[in-house]
């Protein structure tokens, strides 16, 4: 067989039902990546839970350390969950109502930006109140866990914005959009767990 024939051979076409079930490489890669991220955050949460349980005196947060803003963060949590719902609706409409779907995706991105911005405002307030990485275990775990999540949220927002701009420019790649959604849903679903464990 000559090398030319390799490139001129027609591709083997899978039956339609099989190709519909195929998982794109980008989506599979993202799912595996998210699985490793789940383990990463589980390790952080595990260390935090043990530190909380073994604190001397049994008082958490430690005396003299500021309390975390539970109510404000509850609103922020709702904003992030709303972002996930908007993205899900946008995905549902993508095949039928493209313009409407794009608006939903844009709204999801804006909610994500609002979440990260409010987190930033919260951090500034906590730093002013004396909660730092070195002030106590409480501060160290707070900034490590919440900061790592915020970093993931920022990366996901950048990815979603890039996909959105490509879609607006008429370059819609369904697998890329799905992979980005997987990452965003991970960021959204992880947050309530962090909120329940770290804030409450």
């Amino acid at each position, binding site marked *: 067989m000559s090398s030319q024939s390799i490139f001129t051979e027609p591709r083997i076409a899978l039956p339609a039902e099989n190709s519909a079930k195929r998982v794109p490489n980008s989506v599979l890669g993202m799912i595996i990546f998210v*699985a490793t991220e789940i383990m990463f955050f*589980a390790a952080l949460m*595990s260390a935090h*839970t*043990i530190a909380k349980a073994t604190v001397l005196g049994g008082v958490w947060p430690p005396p003299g350390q500021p309390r975390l803003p539970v109510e404000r963060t509850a609103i922020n949590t709702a904003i992030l969950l709303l972002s996930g719902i908007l993205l899900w609706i946008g995905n549902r409409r993508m095949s039928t109502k493209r313009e409407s779907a794009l608006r939903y995706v844009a709204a999801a991105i804006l909610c994500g930006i609002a979440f990260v911005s409010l987190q930033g405002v919260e951090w500034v307030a906590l730093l002013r109140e004396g909660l730092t990485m070195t002030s106590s275990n409480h501060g160290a775990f707070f900034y490590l866990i919440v900061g790592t999540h915020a970093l993931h949220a920022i990366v996901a927002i950048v990815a979603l914005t890039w996909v959105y701009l490509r879609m607006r420019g008429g370059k819609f790649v369904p697998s890329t959009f799905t992979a980005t959604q997987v990452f965003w849903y991970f960021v959204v679903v992880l947050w309530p767990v962090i909120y329940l464990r770290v804030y409450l």
Partner: protein
Amino acid sequence: MRIRTFAAAVALTLIPAAGWSCPACMVGDSKTASTYLGMTLIMSALPLLLIGGLGYWFWRRQP
């Protein structure tokens, strides 16, 4: 002397309460023990659930 040391070490294993002095455990009470146990179970089960879930998903999607 060695036999006495060995006997003392064996005797210590019969007193679980002495194990509470573990420097990594910080506080030796039932709450700490249950937290360690719970986290060990979660951290052991989570990768199995993730890999199992992914495998099950592939199995469901096979043509």
